[in-house]
């Protein structure tokens, strides 16, 4: 029986460094803490005084897995601050780079991070020993995403080319078209992945009170831009995000935890997107989901993997469509006319909504920056899910209990490196 404290000092198979502590006394849970002990990140502080065009390449450094998300939330926020709208061909290429990032991140998570939990393996290495073709195919699919990113923006980790106002230059059409055979193969692999994903044996857990929050776009699956949709509040403007959701410092973590203004946790990420934006999925992804009985509303957090699998189909399909339609004309970039301004933007990092807001002065220098990463928004939700699971978990043997809790956190694909940032500290002498 697990009627004793569960302590996982270092979580495996998550991005970054974090731990989990569940204090149990006399068979009762006293405390649940998802600990973050990654060194704090000071991005919001050191962006101040930087020129706005430097910001996308600096914020990209927050995460090696989802740098594109950081680039595009900051680029769009800056463009809104300056009152710039970019032409559709610029937007299309942005979506292509973004979906390519979803491919590498989602495939990594499905097969290397969460997959081992669902197939009874300690890691992807033991999974590879059992099913080498599965892991080899996963690596190949992930590489298709990485190579597409490199073709657009030079490299897949911290790509360079996207900028405020457009692109530094148009990537060569032939380089992008060269990706098509691998992407077409990847699309079929992704469909297989959905079939595989729905048949896995997920732990039983239904959460009735989820508030799902995602970027929402009436005309397409929300990824780069749009409004914000909440399963409780409906459609909100990006500008209203901070009226509904706020960050709070908690003592046990370097990362801020996000709550609704009423103090409740909420969920961002693939499940929020899948449940809120299913109608906007492309035909191919929607069909792949429906063929396998996957449809909203999924409320088992372990099944985020299914949503991620469907989104992988969406990502491959969109990459193919966007490359086939790619035919840039004219300049890739519009010169910036600097002005004092304030802009915010949300986009969908692979692991959930990423909100940025900047204030800039008349010379284009940053006066204020706010970065709300997806994992910080999900931390409170993870703790609430754990709390909900406790009755079953306390009946399990200790090792099984620990694994079940760790698995839950991994299902969120937490990126603890990016969730960690600090507020300005004011010291008052009394």
């Amino acid at each position, binding site marked *: 029986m697990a009627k004793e404290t569960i302590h996982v000092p270092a979580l495996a198979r998550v991005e970054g460094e974090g731990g989990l502590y569940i204090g149990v006394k006399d068979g009762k849970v006293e405390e649940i803490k998802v600990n973050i002990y990654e*060194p704090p990140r000071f991005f919001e502080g050191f962006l101040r005084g930087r020129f706005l065009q430097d910001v996308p390449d600096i914020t990209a450094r927050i995460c090696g897995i989802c740098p594109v998300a950081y680039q595009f939330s900051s680029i769009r926020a800056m463009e809104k601050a300056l009152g710039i709208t970019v032409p559709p061909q610029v937007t299309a290429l942005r979506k292509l780079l973004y979906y390519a990032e979803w491919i590498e991140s989602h495939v990594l998570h499905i097969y290397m991070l969460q997959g081992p939990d669902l197939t009874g393996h300690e890691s992807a290495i033991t999974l590879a020993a059992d099913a080498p073709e599965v892991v080899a195919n996963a*690596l190949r699919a992930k590489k298709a995403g990485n190579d597409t990113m490199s073709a657009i923006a030079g490299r897949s*980790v911290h790509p360079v080319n996207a900028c405020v106002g457009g692109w530094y230059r148009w990537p060569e059409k032939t380089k992008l078209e060269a990706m098509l055979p691998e992407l077409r193969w990847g699309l079929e692999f992704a469909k297989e992945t959905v079939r595989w994903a729905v048949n896995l044996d997920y732990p039983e857990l239904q959460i009735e009170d989820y508030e799902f929050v995602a970027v929402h776009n009436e005309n397409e699956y929300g990824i780069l831009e749009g409004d914000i949709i909440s399963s409780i509040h409906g459609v909100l403007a990006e500008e209203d995000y901070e009226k509904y959701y706020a960050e709070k410092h908690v003592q046990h973590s370097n990362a801020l935890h996000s709550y609704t203004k009423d103090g409740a946790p909420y969920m961002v990420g693939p499940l929020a997107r899948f449940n809120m934006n299913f109608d906007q999925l492309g035909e191919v992804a929607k069909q792949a989901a429906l063929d396998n009985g996957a449809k909203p509303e999924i409320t088992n957090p372990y099944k985020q993997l299914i949503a991620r699998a469907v989104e992988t189909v969406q990502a491959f399909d969109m990459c193919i469509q966007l490359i086939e339609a790619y035919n840039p004309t004219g300049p890739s970039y519009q010169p910036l006319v600097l002005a004092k301004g304030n802009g915010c933007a949300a986009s969908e990092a692979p692991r959930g909504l990423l909100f940025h807001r900047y204030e800039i002065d008349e010379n284009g220098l940053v006066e204020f920056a706010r970065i709300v990463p997806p994992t910080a928004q999900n931390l409170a939700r993870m703790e609430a899910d754990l709390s909900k699971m406790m009755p079953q978990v306390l009946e399990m043997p200790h090792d099984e209990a620990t694994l079940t809790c760790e698995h839950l956190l991994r299902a969120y694909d937490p990126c603890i490196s990016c969730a960690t940032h600090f507020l300005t500290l004011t010291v008052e002498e009394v």
Partner: protein
Amino acid sequence: MKRLIIIGIGQELRGDDAVGIAVVREWAVEYPKKLASPQIEVDFLPLPGLALLDHISGFETAILVDAVLGGPGVRPGSLLNLSPEDLVSFTRGTGSAHGWGVAESLRLGRTLKQEDLPEKIIILGIGGKQVDLGAKISPEVAEAIPEAVQMLDHVVEEILRG
């Protein structure tokens, strides 16, 4: 198949983790003719993760130069000539926040029996002391760099001779 790739691995902002990069860079400066040889490629990778497999694929031999933390008999500045098998106990050595160190990636590659992986993978390890954020290479580790460069060149010579 191409002949040889030499990769310096490590993050230059994390103390002794930078030593692998430093050794390969120093070797390139001392042996510019070998650097220019069509048989040899040189690369620097801060945090290769699983992509390490892509970087070494297609070469007959790969030499990875990396800092090593812990392990039996490893002291700051000690030099080790390792094979991937030795790495199992060194999984925390890369200071990677993303879970896929050199050891895991190489093990995965071998488990998958990927055909275009190098037949021979040599890991030149340099014992480290700390991987603190923003720190420089520790003095006793930095002192070992010239000898590590010689050791690297010796291994390169042996490979080129066949």
